[in-house]
């Protein structure tokens, strides 16, 4: 079955340090991949998405993600974390069925220390 794995439940990063959040997917065909962010008390907001082409995609708020087919991964990165980046991050895969159905990972909560 198609699935998305985010192996890290929590990550703590110092403000100004770099960040990488891991995402692995299990899907037979070329996936459509997304990263969403959920700030405290808010709904989810799309950070970036990958469908095809350049495997390094740029998103909002200074985030980027790299698709690596050989590793079935779509890791999210940011070179310098700000305190406002503290949130929960979800990776998701679209199943490319007739409907826009997303399968989400379990999320990674990012804590930013001063």
């Amino acid at each position, binding site marked *: 079955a198609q699935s998305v794995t985010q192996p890290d439940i929590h990550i703590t990063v110092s403000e100004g340090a770099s960040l990488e959040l891991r995402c692995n997917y299990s899907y037979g065909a070329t996936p459509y991949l*997304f990263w969403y962010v959920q700030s405290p008390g808010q709904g989810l907001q799309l950070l970036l998405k990958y469908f095809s082409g350049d495997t390094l995609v740029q998103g909002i708020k200074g985030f980027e993600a790299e698709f690596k087919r050989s590793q079935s991964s779509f890791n999210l990165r940011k070179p310098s974390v700000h305190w406002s980046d503290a949130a929960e991050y979800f990776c998701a895969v679209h199943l490319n069925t007739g409907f826009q159905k997303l399968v989400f990972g379990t999320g990674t909560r990012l804590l930013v220390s001063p």
Partner: protein
Amino acid sequence: DVKVTQSSRYLVKRTGEKVFLECVQDMDHENMFWYRQDPGLGLRLIYFSYDVKMKEKGDIPEGYSVSREKKERFSLILESASTNQTSMYLCASSSSGGGPYNEQFFGPGTRLTVL
């Protein structure tokens, strides 16, 4: 800006009550979704709708039903609430144009507690 609104941010109900969660979007989107979010489980799809009066079961439809009588409104119904339905419920919408490339826009969520 796309706006997805949910009728309540917090809701407390008693076991056995019938519960309605309402979601409204203002961007004329064809698709609407209901998810529940639980710690350690991420978001799981309950139901979705791709047109008025059309609905499809998601991954965890048991104990829930939905209604979509108007394009902008999608309701989630708990026929007889149970304590294991205590959760955060998120509504989302998206356009059908362009196929699967379209972003889902999320509401702020309703935190439901069933006592």
